[in-house]
């Protein structure tokens, strides 16, 4: 072993929000059509009992119906009915941070990871939660209509925002970010959406990139958020859990390709990002 040194060269003025990585949230979601029946919703809500250890906190999601009747005489009557349409289960880390959420609504099951480590580990865990939830929709007449992945990455600028140079974070020639973002000061947003094919599936992308301020350790800090959602539209009448893993992997690859397409080479290195073919 040769002598080591900790000398640093060419430090970036942007950093991934969690230092080790930039991912603040990864959402895996499945949408169903038609919406779940009342009995399926009830069964789905009972998943909380099976997952008490993994998700100690639970809140039922209520839908309230407000009815306001205004009579010709000026009198009014109100009606307010609340019904459970789903559940949100939460787990927290030792430091109080949210780690995982499982949320069901009348047509969606989503798993949210807020403490990302590695794709294989995170997806394996999310898949287990989906398997648990799918056990409660057996016999339902709702089928998977889309499978989606939402990845939210955030970067912080260390310094005076007016002096920030976006080219340190993003490739100037990227087609995904509008040119004016590079020349009109630190605050901007760029939202876009497009379809592309994912093998035989149609896939909708939505990309929202926002530059805003965040409170970081008491300091007003320029924060850039890359919020990328991809939805694979499923036409088949199937609820087979085995279709999830390969599609989620493809959606994850799409997200990596997009990030490589927008992030500067140095930032891509900083978060150890590489194309699927390079792994």
């Amino acid at each position: 072993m040769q002598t080591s040194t900790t000398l640093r060269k060419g430090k970036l003025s942007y950093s991934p929000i969690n230092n080790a990585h930039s991912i603040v949230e990864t959402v895996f979601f499945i949408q169903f059509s038609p919406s779940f029946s009342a009995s399926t919703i009830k069964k789905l809500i009972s998943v909380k009992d099976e997952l008490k250890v993994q998700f100690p906190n639970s809140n039922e999601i209520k839908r309230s119906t407000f009815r306001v009747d205004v009579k010709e005489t000026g009198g009014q009557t109100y009606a307010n009915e609340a019904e459970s349409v789903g559940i949100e289960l939460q787990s927290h880390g030792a430091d109080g941070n949210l780690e995982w959420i499982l949320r069901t609504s009348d047509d969606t099951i989503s798993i949210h990871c807020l403490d990302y480590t590695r794709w294989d580990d995170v997806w394996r865990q999310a898949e287990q939660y989906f398997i648990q939830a799918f056990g409660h929709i057996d016999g339902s007449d709702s089928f998977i209509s889309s499978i989606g992945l939402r990845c939210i990455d955030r970067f912080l600028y260390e310094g005076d925002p007016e002096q920030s140079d976006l080219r340190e974070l993003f490739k100037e020639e990227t087609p995904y970010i509008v040119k004016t973002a590079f020349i009109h000061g630190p605050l901007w947003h760029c939202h876009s959406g497009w379809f592309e094919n994912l093998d035989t599936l149609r896939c909708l992308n939505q990309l929202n990139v926002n530059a805003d301020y965040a409170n970081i350790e008491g300091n007003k800090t320029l924060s850039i958020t890359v919020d990328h959602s991809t939805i694979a539209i499923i036409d088949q009448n199937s609820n087979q859990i085995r279709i999830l893993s390969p599609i989620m992997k493809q959606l994850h690859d799409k997200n990596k390709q997009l990030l490589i397409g927008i992030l500067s080479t140095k930032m891509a290195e900083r978060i150890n990002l590489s194309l699927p073919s390079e792994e």
Partner: protein
Amino acid sequence: MPGITTKSTHTYVVPSCVSAIDDVIEITKKPLLAIGLTTLMIMNVQPKTINSKPETLRSFVEAAEEGQRLNSKRVDLKTIARIREIGTYRDGWDDANGKAASKQAIYDAENFIRQLFPDVKEPTITLAADGEINFLWILPELRLDLGVYGDGSYSYYGKTSSGNEFIADENSLDEKLPEEILAFITNKTHH
């Protein structure tokens, strides 16, 4: 005189995502007053989805993060951050002939240390001039110097305060550290 009937259906979700509200307004006459009242009742909720959106605005699931930032003092995050920072060093990083770490060395170093999370004690991580990623633990009872090269192997030399030595050369990354070493460098109780 026939009354005016207006009907609208929207779905809302409160920011904390613990409840959703569907409002169905059926109004006979004075629609503006009724809408005003309804708006009052649903204050602080944000529109989520409506059925008539174009296909490009197909419903995307609400995020939950609300500005959460993980604790940067966590050993796992600090360690991975340090390895990735080393991954940005170029050839000549030491103003001499220091080699950059290979991409594989970065992957191997991450894979190695991740196996020891969450119980590992924080090592000092440096890049050697030959491109090796070096983990160093200087603990009261052990000094352990461990190198990852990027060829799927790691080597180490360790010495305890009582003089016992541990040596390994080119161990496969699949091969775990001996329990005696793990007992020193992790907070886990070993049996």
